[in-house]
C-alpha cells in the first residue's frame, strides 16, 4: 500500500513495524504520533517531512517501543518463546544481549532435551537414548534398570519426580549428598541402597533439566535487568543446587554408560 501523505506513510510503516503488542496499543501509539506531528507542524512552521525526520525512522521508533514491550512481557512470563524473542531483541543491541540470548537458547535446548528424557523413560524404559549419537556427549538414562522394581511403579515415579524432584533437591543439601552417594554407587556397578535406582536417575535428569532451565531463566533475568553481570549471578542463583549436582552427576552417568 502506498500513500502520498508523508505522515500517513510514516504511520503505516510504524504500525507494521510495531511488534509484541495488541492492535489497540498499536493504534493508540499511531494516533499519538499523528497528533504530535500535526501539533508540531501547526506550532513551529516545520513541514510534516521535517517533523518526521526529527522523530527518526519509523522502524527505529517502533523498535524502541517493541523491544521495551517485549522485555516487559518477558519479565512476568514463563513462556520460553517470549523470553527467547526478548533475548533475541536484546541480542541485536550488543554483546551483552548476545550472551544473554545464547545462554537462554542453550539453556532451553538442554532443559527440553533432559525433560524429554525424563518423560520418555516410563514409556521406553530400556531405550531412552535421546542424546546417544556420540559416546563423548552421551547424556542418557542408563538402559538397564533394576529388575526388582515393577514397571508400573517406575511409570508413576518418573512423572512425579518431574514435578517434585527439582525443587526438593534445590532445598535439601543433605538430599544432594545422599543422592550423590547413590549415583556414585550406581556408577561403580553397585546397587544403590535404600532407594529406587530409576528414581535416582530421574533426579539426575531433573537436575540437569534444572540446570538448563536455570540457565534459561538466568538469561531471562539478564534480559530483565539489562546487565551481563546480573545474567551470570542470576543464572548461578537460579540453578545453584542444580549446578552442583549436574557437575557431579553427569560424568558419573557417562562413565556408567561407557562401561556398558
Amino acid at each position: 500500500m502506498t500513500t502520498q501523505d508523508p505522515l500517513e506513510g510514516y504511520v503505516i510503516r510504524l504500525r507494521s513495524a510495531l511488534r509484541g503488542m495488541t492492535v489497540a496499543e498499536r493504534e493508540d501509539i499511531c494516533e499519538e504520533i499523528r497528533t504530535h506531528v500535526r501539533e508540531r507542524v501547526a506550532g513551529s512552521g516545520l513541514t510534516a517531512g521535517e517533523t518526521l525526520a526529527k522523530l527518526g525512522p519509523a522502524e527505529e521508533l517502533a523498535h524502541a517501543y517493541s523491544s521495551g514491550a517485549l522485555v516487559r512481557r518477558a519479565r512476568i512470563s514463563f513462556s520460553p518463546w517470549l523470553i527467547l524473542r526478548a533475548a533475541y531483541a536484546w541480542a541485536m543491541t550488543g554483546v551483552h544481549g548476545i550472551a544473554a540470548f545464547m545462554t537462554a537458547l542453550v539453556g532451553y535446548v538442554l532443559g527440553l532435551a533432559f525433560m524429554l528424557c525424563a518423560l520418555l523413560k516410563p514409556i521406553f524404559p530400556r531405550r531412552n537414548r535421546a542424546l546417544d549419537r556420540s559416546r563423548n556427549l552421551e547424556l542418557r538414562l542408563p538402559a538397564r534398570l533394576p529388575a526388582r522394581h515393577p514397571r508400573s511403579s517406575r511409570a508413576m515415579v518418573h512423572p512425579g519426580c518431574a514435578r517434585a524432584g527439582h525443587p526438593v533437591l534445590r532445598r535439601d543439601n543433605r538430599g544432594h549428598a545422599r543422592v550423590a552417594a547413590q549415583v556414585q554407587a550406581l556408577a561403580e556397578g553397585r546397587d544403590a541402597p535404600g532407594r529406587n535406582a530409576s528414581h535416582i536417575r530421574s533426579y539426575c535428569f531433573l537436575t540437569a533439566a534444572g540446570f538448563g532451565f536455570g540457565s534459561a531463566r538466568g538469561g531471562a533475568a539478564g534480559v530483565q535487568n539489562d546487565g551481563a553481570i546480573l545474567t551470570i549471578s542470576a543464572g548461578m542463583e537460579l540453578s545453584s543446587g542444580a549446578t552442583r549436582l549436574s557437575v557431579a552427576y553427569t560424568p558419573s552417568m557417562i562413565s556408567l554408560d561407557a562401561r556398558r
Partner: protein
Amino acid sequence: MFGSNGRDDGAEKWEAQLRKGCLEMAVLAVLHSGRSYGLEILRALENRSNLVLSEGTIYPILNRLRLDGFVESEWVESESGHPRKYYSLTRQGRERATGMAELWLEFVGGLSGLVEPLAATKKGRSGQ
C-alpha cells in the same frame, strides 16, 4: 579519538549515557507538577533543564512508564482541534519521582564536593 565538537568520544558517550540515565527521572519530575502531553513534556525538558531530546525518544519512555504503572494516560479533546494524550503520575509514580529526586540530590551533593576542585582548576587555567 575526538568528536566533531573537539571533545573526545569517550566523554561524549559518557554524557549521552548520563543524559539517558536521567531521562526517566526528568520526565517524572515534569509530570510531578501536573498532567502533560508528549510535546509539552519535551518543551518543559528543554526550557527547564536544557535536556534536549530527540523527539522519537519521549514517547517510548512514556509508554514504558505507563506499562510500569508510574503514569496513566487519557485522551482529552483540545482547543487545537485534535485530542491530546495526557499523562499524569500515579501514586506509585509520585513516590518513585520523589524517591529518585532524593537519591539524585544526595548523589550529586556527594560527588560535587569531589569534582568542584577540578572545575575550579580549569577556570583558573583559562583565566591565566
